[in-house]
């Protein structure tokens, strides 16, 4: 063989090898300290923030180094048609995201190894899955689109091990439930919106990872729109974006205090025109925010000072794209790993209400006898599940079918509805849950008395063939409507 040819061939092989090494090394480039975000083609973005789930066609997850502007960006999901909602693991070595491999695929949850940038599929549902977040104990939580049952586009929260095993549904209501973050105390903060029987407002609810003890965390005024990206900082503040009163043109950065979330709201950007779409507090102080200065321009990544409530210079902007959902590749403190007290072998759970007549703040006169409820009606999705007389102290104690959505309404002695129906709740298998009253002040701790109702066995729901249930005002109303 011609020696030149040999040299050329060897040179060629070496060049290929070097190139592949270089590629591999680029692929193994550490992302420590970088910012990862979702870059959405402008035409596919929901500019008014109304969509709870982020499922933007053609979106990609991109990494940049905000401290080194010259360093080129890295597209982390080049093998996917669309990818959104990045979430960093506590050790900053892995990344959860939701993606479509091909255009018509359903969205599923994937996990990427940030060292070698390889991804593995974690969820394998027919329906789409969104908004994944790491849970302590090697698990994750995400939102799954549920099969249609006539109650709207219901999405429920699921948890599973990171290897895809031990799948568990944890929310059971006709709502759009979506994960936002995991609070330091170990609870999941869920963005939720009632779908049935009529659409409700968006609100954040805190829930244990086993689906128990759901409680209202935050709700904005009127029909405020809330963002699905929420962060809690080490000093106990929770940050998110709110379109106050549903105003589609002005998403603002809101802070609330975890210790008292319902009444500590501060709008950090009320003095800034334009609209915010995402917020990311940095451990070193300050924030990264997704912001659009005007109706015309793109959504870019900016720095923001909480102290003086002012925007810094843009960090990343690209014409034709909107930049949202920034996350930092930085290790952070793992939330508490809460124990699971449910028992999957049980089919029921218990609910105790201490006094049905505890409602909001009392006036000095108190409730008149006529305004006092003496019964409670339990409503299912499509029927009354029973009317239960309450004890003299206003307490009631129910054994309800687990993982079944129910609502309550209080009735006076003549069977007229006083309050309700309430929002949907469910009880997990073997869960024991208590509430102080119906529609009570959410910051009220219970009074220290033995409820009379727990001196007896719990009333089973559904109540079978009771006269009381037949007198249900809801059923009577339905019957009347049917006759008309």
């Amino acid at each position, binding site marked *: 063989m011609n020696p030149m040819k040999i040299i050329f061939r060897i040179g060629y092989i070496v060049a290929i090898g070097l190139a592949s090494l270089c590629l591999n090394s680029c692929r193994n480039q550490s992302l420590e300290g970088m910012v990862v975000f979702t870059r959405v083609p402008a035409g596919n973005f929901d500019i008014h923030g109304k969509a709870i789930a982020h499922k933007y066609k053609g979106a990609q997850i991109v990494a940049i180094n905000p401290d080194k502007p010259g360093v080129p960006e890295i597209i982390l999901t080049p093998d996917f048609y669309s990818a959104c909602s990045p979430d960093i693991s506590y050790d900053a070595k892995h990344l959860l995201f939701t993606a479509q491999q091909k255009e018509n695929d359903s969205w599923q949850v994937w996990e990427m190894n940030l060292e070698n940038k390889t991804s593995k599929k974690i969820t394998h549902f027919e329906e789409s899955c969104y908004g994944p977040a790491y849970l302590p104990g090697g698990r994750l939580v995400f939102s799954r689109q549920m099969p249609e049952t006539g109650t709207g586009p219901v999405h429920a929260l699921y948890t599973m091990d990171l290897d895809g095993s031990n799948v568990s549904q944890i929310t059971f209501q006709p709502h759009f439930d979506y994960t936002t973050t995991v609070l330091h105390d170990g609870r999941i903060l869920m963005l939720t919106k009632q779908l049935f029987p009529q659409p409700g407002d968006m609100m954040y609810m805190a829930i244990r990872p086993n689906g128990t003890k759901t409680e209202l965390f935050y709700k904005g005024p009127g029909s405020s729109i809330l963002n699905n990206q929420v962060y809690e900082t080490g000093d106990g503040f929770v940050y998110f974006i709110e379109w106050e009163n549903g105003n589609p043109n002005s998403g603002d950065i809101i802070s609330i205090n975890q210790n008292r979330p319902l009444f500590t709201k501060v709008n950090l950007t009320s003095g800034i025109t334009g609209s915010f779409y995402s917020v990311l507090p940095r451990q070193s102080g300050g924030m990264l925010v997704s912001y659009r200065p005007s109706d015309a321009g793109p959504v870019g990544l900016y720095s923001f000072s909480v102290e003086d409530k002012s925007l810094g210079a843009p960090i990343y902007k690209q014409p034709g794209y909107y930049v949202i959902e920034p996350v930092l590749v930085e290790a952070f403190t793992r939330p508490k790993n809460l124990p699971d007290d449910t028992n999957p072998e049980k089919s029921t759970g218990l609910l105790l209400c201490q006094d049905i007549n505890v409602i909001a703040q009392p006036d000095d006169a108190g409730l008149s006898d006529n305004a006092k409820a003496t019964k409670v009606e339990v409503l299912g999705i499509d029927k009354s599940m029973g009317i239960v007389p309450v004890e003299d102290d206003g307490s009631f104690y129910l054994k309800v079918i687990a993982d079944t959505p129910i609502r309550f309404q209080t009735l006076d002695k003549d069977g007229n509805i006083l309050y309700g129906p309430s929002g949907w709740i469910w009880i997990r298998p073997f869960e024991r849950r208590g509430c102080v009253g119906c529609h009570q002040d959410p910051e009220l701790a219970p009074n*220290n008395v033995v409820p009379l109702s727990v001196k007896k066995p719990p009333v089973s729901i559904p109540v079978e063939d009771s006269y009381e249930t037949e007198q249900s005002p809801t059923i009577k109303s339905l019957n009347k409507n049917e006759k008309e």
Partner: protein
Amino acid sequence: MKKNKKLFFILGGLVIISLLIISVHKVSRLHVNYMTAVDDHPLNCISCHVYTQKDGIVAKLINEDYLSPFNMAVSPDGSKLYVIAQDGDALLVVDTQTNKVTGKIAVGERPHSVAIKSDGNTAFVSNQWADNVYEIDLSLLKVVDTLKTGSGPAELAFSPDKKFLYVVDSYSSEVSIIDLQTKTEIKRLVAGNNPVAAVFSPDGSQAYVTSRRTLPMPFETPPITELTVIDAATQMVKERKMFDNAYLMENVAFTPSGDMAIATLIRPKNLIPSIQVEKGWMMTHGIGIIEQGNEGRVIQLLTDEPNAYYPDPFDIVITPDGQKAFISHSGADVITVIDLNAIRTLLAESTQKKLDYYSNHLGISSRYVLKRIPTGANPKGLVLSPDGKNLYVAERLEDRIAVISTENLETIKTINLNGPSRITVARKGRRLFNNAGHTFQYQYACYTCHPDSHEDGLVYNMAGADMGRNLANTRSLRDIGDTPPYKWNGKNSSIYKQDGMRFSTVLTRTEAFDYDELDALVAYIVTGIKNPPNLRYNPSGHLTEAQKRGKKIYYRTHTNYGEEIPVYNQCATCHPPPYFTNKQMTDVGTLSETDDPMLLDVPHLNNIYESPPYLHDGRAATLEELWTKFNNDDKHGVANDMKKDELNDLVEYLKSLRDAKYYKNDPEYH
């Protein structure tokens, strides 16, 4: 051939050793699994067999003698800080300019409080486990006199004319009034249940004394704790103010103007099924306010927040300008700063009905809490410098004093009291025991239900499978390390198991202790909890005549009618010394309809006099009631043949029972 034989023996030996190692490993694994109720605990023998040594060389090597600063006083000129070292049995003198310990005076057993005379030359120190008060000459740093008191002297307060010293007798629930001229106790007043703190009103007309334990209440009714009002002029109890649904009122302070007195307190939820922690369903913490106008209205307000709790409020001090109050939360390592004007406004604008409502309101604290200041481990006593500019905080489990500026509300320095620098495993365990960080949202610490590692006198509605069943009387943790099994149903064979995963699932409802933490907690519970001396009923070991008669009844084998009492039904069968428990499960006919069928763990009886109520569900208010109300069929020992006098004697004997160490080597008890 010989060589082969040798090889054969070597190989055989190796096989046997290997088998032995495997067997020992397997047996160890089984043993550790049994003791810990988990199967992944590291096979760390020292966890249970070294850290829990109570005596001997190993115990000395692994433990330290800490100081544990508790209560404090400041000299009138502010130049000296006097610190009670509770575990060091000493009064420390700290120079507030140099921040150095300049003196150490040995005092009696378990000192509680110190009071300084206005001339700054004399201190009085109460010795809680010695039933006396030491008078100390501060110029000589010497104890110059010993004043006898009631049982368990705690806080000290000078009468306004400085002629009398009021001593709160925490164990005998009294107040001793000592004439400082004659150094003798001239009067003893009955005060609440387990009183600890006393303070005079600014006008000197009355003293307030707060209690820790609820008064004896009927079964399944809320706790009520007494604040005793003593008229200074007559030295008589003037009034007993009741705090409904509150207890552990550790300290009380008056505003300088005297418009309010404020006490720390806990509002427990022991009557509600313990089904959740969220929304204050287990414990809430706050303050009790006694207005001096409004006919002495009593108000309770929480210092907690909806998602954050500040357990075990201990001390309270009020700035000289009457604007701010500082509260130490020993379970959360936090000082809460209260805006007193905001409290005044809230009280002025609210009806009693509203205020009653607020007593359970977790959000109302945002009206008056100015700041939370973090501290070191287990902040206890507080004292202000005379000019009100500095707040001194006794960080008990740091052996350190923090100094906080009352103006900018920041910690400006810490004063090291020169305790041991090494943090032992048991010390770490004590910190865990006292800190609520291992309960969901910091709602309560182990200490909350087990103050002083004892019990809180309450019965809890511990919801098992159903609510309203299986009520549980809180048990003392003193001597608990030697008296397994644990829980009334005896389900837990070791403290490891008791405080393990299930504990976090049903009680603390947050992440379980990790194994290092469990090691530390167990080490503290087994080695660090001491039983106070039974000075009240058996100070010397010599029984009274009644106690001697009671002892005979305790060990009797025949009834008054001459019938033989079956061995299984004799007191000493189930309750043998030194712990007065056979550590077995039994049925003494005391289960109620609300109990699941079960046998009950035989409780130990050392210092049983200080643990009312009695029985697993606390139905018996007194020891006597065990037999007069709950032993109709003589299953809990044969007692129905006894006359009232005999029963009294038996009860007297039971009250005489002391710490187990007194019975271990006593031949009379073997």
